C-alpha cells in the first residue's frame, strides 16, 4: 500500500508523550483559513520554490516550459504542474524541490524505526499527522498497525471529519487520539474550515480510545469565550478524554504558503492579545476539566 507524505519529522516533543517521530500525510478535506501546514492541504505532489535561493540560471526552464522568467521574476504555472520533479532534479541551488513523496507502508515504517531506541527510552512513539491521515486510511492504518505490532506507541492526530467506518479502522490501531475540534457552531465551522462538524461530533461521542481534544485559537473565528466554553463543555462529556488543550495561533503556515505559491495564505492573521488568551483559557478552565495550553499543563 502506498501513500503520499510531506515529511517524516524525527525528535518531536509536541505530538504526544516522550520523544516521537511524526508522519505528515499529504491531503486534507478541510481548508481552514489559518492552516499551519498548507503544504499538506492538497493531496498531489507540489513544487516547493524558494525564490531566495534561485540563481536564475535557467536550468529548469530548459526542461519544462511551465517555468518562465519575466521581469526578473521566476514564475511557475502551478495549475498545470504535474509534480513530475524533472525541474527540481535539474536545479543546482536547491531552490526547487518537491513537496510530497510517495512512500510504501514498509518504507515509512523503516524510517520510523530508526528512532526505536529513543521511543523506548522516553516512552515515546510515532504519530500520524497531516494533512489528515483519514484521507489515506489504508496507508495510515498500515503504518499504525505495523508499528504497533512492534510494540511502538502510536498516536493519531486527526480532525475526525470522515465516516464512522474510517474512524473505526484507524482508531483501532491508535494508542492515543489527538483530535481537533474548532467550533461547536456548525455554520461557523463550515465557514472557517469548509466542512460541517456533525460527523466530527458524532465520531467524538463514539470514540473509545484515550483522547486529547484540541482547539487552535483563531482570531475572528473562535477567540470568544462562548465558543471555547461550549467546546470545553462538550469535551467534559467525553469519557475517554485525558485533557483538553488550547493551542495559540502561529503564523508558521504563511512562510510555507509563499514557497507553494498559495497567495491567499501568505499574510499572517493578527495576533490574539495575551489578556484575551488568558480570558479564553479561564473560560475553558471554569468547566473543570484537565486543561493544557501549548503542551503544558494549565494550573490556576
Amino acid at each position, binding site marked *: 500500500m502506498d501513500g503520499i507524505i510531506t*515529511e517524516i*519529522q*524525527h*525528535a518531536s*516533543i*509536541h505530538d504526544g*508523550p*516522550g*520523544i516521537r517521530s511524526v508522519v505528515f500525510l499529504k491531503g486534507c478535506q478541510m481548508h481552514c483559513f489559518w492552516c499551519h501546514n498548507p503544504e499538506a492541504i492538497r493531496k498531489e505532489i507540489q513544487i516547493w520554490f524558494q525564490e531566495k*535561493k534561485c*540563481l536564475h*540560471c535557467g536550468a529548469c526552464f530548459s526542461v519544462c516550459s511551465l517555468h518562465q522568467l519575466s521581469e526578473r521574476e521566476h514564475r511557475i504555472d502551478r495549475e498545470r504542474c504535474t509534480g513530475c520533479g524533472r525541474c527540481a532534479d535539474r536545479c*543546482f*541551488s*536547491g531552490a526547487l524541490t518537491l513537496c510530497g513523496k510517495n512512500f510504501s507502508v514498509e518504507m515509512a515504517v523503516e524510517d520510523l524505526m*530508526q*528512532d526505536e*531506541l*529513543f521511543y523506548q*527510552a*522516553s*516512552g*515515546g512513539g510515532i504519530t500520524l499527522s497531516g494533512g489528515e491521515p483519514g484521507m489515506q486510511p489504508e496507508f495510515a492504518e498500515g503504518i499504525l498497525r505495523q508499528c504497533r505490532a512492534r510494540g511502538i506507541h502510536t498516536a493519531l492526530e486527526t480532525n475526525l471529519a470522515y465516516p464512522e467506518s474510517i474512524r473505526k479502522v484507524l482508531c483501532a490501531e491508535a494508542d492515543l487520539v489527538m483530535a481537533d475540534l474548532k467550533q461547536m457552531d456548525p455554520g461557523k465551522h463550515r465557514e472557517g474550515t469548509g466542512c460541517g462538524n456533525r460527523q466530527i461530533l458524532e465520531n467524538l461521542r463514539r470514540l473509545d480510545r484515550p483522547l486529547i481534544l484540541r482547539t487552535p485559537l483563531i482570531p475572528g473565528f473562535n477567540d470568544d469565550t462562548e465558543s471555547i466554553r461550549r467546546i470545553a463543555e462538550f469535551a467534559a462529556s467525553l469519557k475517554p478524554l485525558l485533557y483538553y488543550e488550547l493551542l495559540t495561533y502561529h503564523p508558521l503556515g504563511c512562510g510555507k504558503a509563499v514557497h507553494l505559491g498559495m497567495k491567499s495564505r501568505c499574510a499572517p492573521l493578527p495576533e490574539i492579545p495575551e489578556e484575551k488568551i488568558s480570558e479564553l483559557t479561564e473560560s475553558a478552565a471554569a468547566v473543570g476539566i484537565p486543561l493544557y495550553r*501549548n*503542551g*503544558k*499543563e494549565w494550573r490556576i
Partner: protein
Amino acid sequence: MKSFRMTRYTGQIARLVAKKKEQVLEKQRKLGKADEDDYGYVLPPEDFMTHFHFPEVDENGSFHGVRAWAKNFRALMEAHPVYVDADDALAGRWMFMMSRMRAGYQLALAPFPADYSFLHRDQERYDLTHGIGKDAHFAPDYRIGLALGWGGLTDKVRKSLKRLAKDEEAAELLQAELDVLAGIRNWIHRTALAAEGEVRRINLKLETEAPETLQEACQWIAWFNMASRTYNRDGAGGQLDEILRPYYERDIAAGRIDDEDAVYFIACLLLNDPHYYQIGGPDREGNDQTSRISYLILEAAHLLKISCNLTIRVHDRMEEGLFRRGVEILLEDRLGYPRFSGDNALIRGYMRNGYSAEQARERIALGCNWMSIPGREYTLNDVVKINLMKVFEVAFNEMAESGQCSLETLHSGFRKHLAKAALCIAKGLDFHLAHQYENEPELLLNLLCHGPIEKGRDASHGGVEFYNMACDGAGIAVVADSFAAIQTQVVERRRISWKECIDAVRSDFRNANGERIRLLLASSPRYGHGGTCADEWAVTLMRDFVESFPNRHHTPEGRLIIPGLFSWADSLRFGKTVGATPNGRHAGEPSSHGANPCPNFRRDGAVTAIVKAVASLQCGYGNTSPLQLELNDSFLNGENTVDRLMALFRVHFQLGGTLINVNIVHAETLRAAQKNPELYPDLIVRVTGFTAYFIMLSPEFREFVCQRILKEEQYA
C-alpha cells in the same frame, strides 16, 4: 536525596557572585577577548608588573628549565598580592599565568637540543597541532596533598632528595620542588595574616598541616589550584565528591557543620576556580559512588549560577536521582552545566588498551574532552591534533595534479597522507617527552602525582606510571561531506565532471559557474542525516584515523597513542588554513566541530539524528568524541522535558557515546548579546568542554559560537 534549600548564606553568596561579575567585566575592559575558560583569576594591582621582575630570565626575556621555573615561581609567589573577602569561606585569588609571561618565548631558543626541524616539513604540510612544548593537560591526585599538607609534601621532597642526592636530574628537580613549596607556603602565610577569624586560623594551620575539616580541605584544594594555575594554567580537577566525602562525613558526624555550611564551602571552592570536577560514577569495583555530597556539589553550582565545569559520570549502576537532578539543573539554570560522561563506553574503550577494569574506572573526564587517571597518567590531552580537512586538501590537490581522478584514488591518497601526518605526530610526541622537562617541568603537578617525587623525575620525563598520549582528529564532518558530495554529484549522478569539481573547488567557487557548482555540491547528503553515503564516509574516515597511527597506535619509542575526535576552539583556526572543500565550504570557513555534523546537516535537524551520528564516531579506546548539543525552547517547552532529555542522553550512551556538552540558550538573548555584549555580562555559553562568559570571547569567536548555536538550535 531530600531536597536542599539554602537559607543562611544567601547574602554572602549573592555578594560574592556580584563581585565576580564585576571582575569579569573588569577583565574584559582591561584585557579584551580571551577565547577560553574563565579560570577564576582576577587582575593584579595595576603597578605590580612595574616593580616585579623574574630573577632568572635569558637575553630574550624568556626562561626555561627546572631551576629557572622554580626560582621565578618562588619569586612570584613571594610577591603575589594577597586577596581576602569577608564573604568568602576561602582566602586567595590567583592573578598571573607564568607560562604566558615568558616574553619572546620560542621553543627553538631553548638552551637544549630542541631542534625538531626534521619534523617541520610534515607539520607544516598537514598543519599539525603537534603539542611539542605544551604543558599540563593531565590530572593531579589531590588526595596526595590533602593527606600530607604543604609541610608533609615538603618533608617528602626532602627525604627523596636525601636519597637521590647523587642523581643529578633528581637532585635538580627536587631542589626546585622545595623552592616551589616554599613559595606557596609564603603566599599562604601572608594571606592568612591579612585574613581574620576562622579563615585566618585555617590558613595559618594549612601553611604546614594537612586539612582536617571540609572547609580546610576546600581551602587546601583552592591553594593548590591557584598555585598550579599561576604556574601553567593546569585546571584538571578531580572526583570532587569522593575527595571531599571523608571530611564532610566527619564534620557532620561531629556536629561541626550542617549541609548549608557544606554547600557554602563548596560554592566558595567552585567560585574560586572553575576546575573540571566529576561527581558520581563507578568506584574501582564498579559500584556507584554517589553520596550525599555529590548532590551538595550540584546544589552549590546551582546556587552560584556562574561559569562552572561539573561532569556527572553516567554508567549502568548509576544512581538515577543524581542524573535526574543534574538534568533538572541543566534545564533550570541554562548555563551549560553539568555535562555528562558515558563511563560504560569510556571504561570499555580504555580496557582495549590492556588496562584492568579497576584502572579504567579511575580514569575520568578532567578537561574539555580529556580523560586521565589522576596522578598516574601523562596524556597531553587537547593539545595534539590532526586537521583532517588539511590532510584531505593535500590528497585532493595531489589527485588533481596527477589527472588520475577517482573516488578510490582520492580515498587512498587521503589514507596515505593521514598515515604520514600520524607518524609525524608520533615522532613529535617522543621528542616532546625527551625534552619537555628541560623546557618547562611540571613542578606543580609533580607534587600531586604518584612517582615524580619518589623517582626524582618530572611527570613529562618518566615520573608517572602511564604515558598514553592523546591525539584528536578535527573537521571529520567536512571531509565526510566532501567525499559524499563527490560520490553523489560527480560519480553517481554525473551532474558535474571531475574537472568541473576540481576547478570550482580550487578557485574557491569563484570561477564561472562556481557558485552553481558549490550549491549543487552543498545539496548532497550530509553526515548526521542517518543512512546516507555521507554517514558511511564519516564512519570510514573515523576508522582510517584510528588506524593511521603506526605500530598499532604507538610512537616509535613505544608510547601508546589514544585517538579521539575533538577540535575545541581550534575550529576557527583549522578552517583558516584550508582552502575550499568539495562539500561547498568556502576557503577559510571554520571546520566542523569535533564529531558533530556540519550545521544544516538535515532539514528537520532532528536531535535524535545528531545523537546517533556522534555515537557512531567513537574511536573506541577510552578517549572521547564529545556530543555538542544546542537545544532551544522548541525541544524544551512542554511537559516532562527532564525525562526526554534523560532519554536522549541514555540512548547516546547506550550507543557508545562518551561525553555530552549541552547548551541551552534562548535564541533572542543570544542575538541581542551578539549586538551588545556589554549588556549581558553574565551570559554564559558552553563553548565546548568548558563554559565561558560570552563577553570574554573575541568578536570573531562570538560570531562563531552564535552561528553554531543559532543554526543548530533550529534543529531541535
